[in-house]
């Protein structure tokens, strides 16, 4: 029935990327823009993990459910998983740095709107 799992979740991830992009482009409040970046991140992570899925695959962990001989045929691709684990931590770091700058901007300007920050425009 219907579409396979990875195609469905990849579509969802791309739609989440588009939603995050819309939030980044349309909002004027810095914190809302950072929320948009977070959605963008999450969507790309879903897309990357979905590219590693194979039909009927199991987690790439060798135990009683997945013998060492079947590993190459039944397990999903471990490379995107390993990439995304590090990408999540880096995404958190980027969010933390952006929020720290937002707090400093609010301390200096008493506003969170990016319309107030005109002197760094070209």
């Amino acid at each position, binding site marked *: 029935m219907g579409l396979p799992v990875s195609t469905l979740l990849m579509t969802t991830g791309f739609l989440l990327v588009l939603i995050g992009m819309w939030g980044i482009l349309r909002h004027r409040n810095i914190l809302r823009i950072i929320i948009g970046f977070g959605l963008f991140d999450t969507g790309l992570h879903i897309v990357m993990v979905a590219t590693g899925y194979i039909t009927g695959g199991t987690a790439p962990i060798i135990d009683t459910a997945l013998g060492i001989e079947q590993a190459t045929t039944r397990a999903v691709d471990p490379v995107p998983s390993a990439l995304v684990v*590090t990408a999540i931590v880096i995404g958190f770091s980027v969010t933390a740095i952006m929020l720290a700058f937002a707090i400093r901007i609010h301390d200096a300007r008493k506003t969170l709107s990016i319309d107030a920050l005109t002197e760094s425009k070209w």
Partner: protein
Amino acid sequence: MKAASSLLAVLLFGAVFAGIVGGYGERESVSALAEQYLAMVPRELGAPNVVTGILITYRGFDTLGEVAVLFMVAAGVGVLLGGKDTTTASEPGREPRRPSELVGNGAEITLPLIFLFGAYVIKNGHLSAGGGFQGGAVVASGTMLLMLALPATKLNHGFLGVTESLAGVVYVGIGILGLVFAAGFLDSHILPLGEFGTLISAGAIPVISALLGVKVGAELSVIIDRFRN
């Protein structure tokens, strides 16, 4: 006008993404690289969890750089937010509410379990799902609960800094040991492989995983504590 151009940009990206999804069919078998990894990690490294094996050995240098990035973020957030003791800018006259006694006691009961679970996740990283990053994140979630339920607690930044610096130094030291006694930097064959699937096995992977967990947990705790005050 602005809304129209934003909509146009989003629609263009949507068209590109639709093209990607439309040409994508679910894969039936893994790529050649992944097949190589899936065959090599259990045999050569002795680690049942392939993802942890890749993260800690084949991409060990990348993981080290990642931890360095986390360290720089902790330092950067400290520079940006530390320094002056700002109380919350809004509602200056209001006292902070007394924390509920029930919540505090419950947090004290649950916290040791959470830290224990974090240690379990770190130590079992090569056997089941988990590893240094995930266990460190669980430990940092315990710190988060501590700061939410008992707002009066102060984290000892000096202790955390010394802990994560020591962990980093030992991490790099193990890497250099791998350079001397085994094939290259961060090679996990400096310790014997041991029996497949037991807790003490897989060479140096559990040691590196524990150091990674300590470092990530300490750094994430420092980052979220910088945001608190």
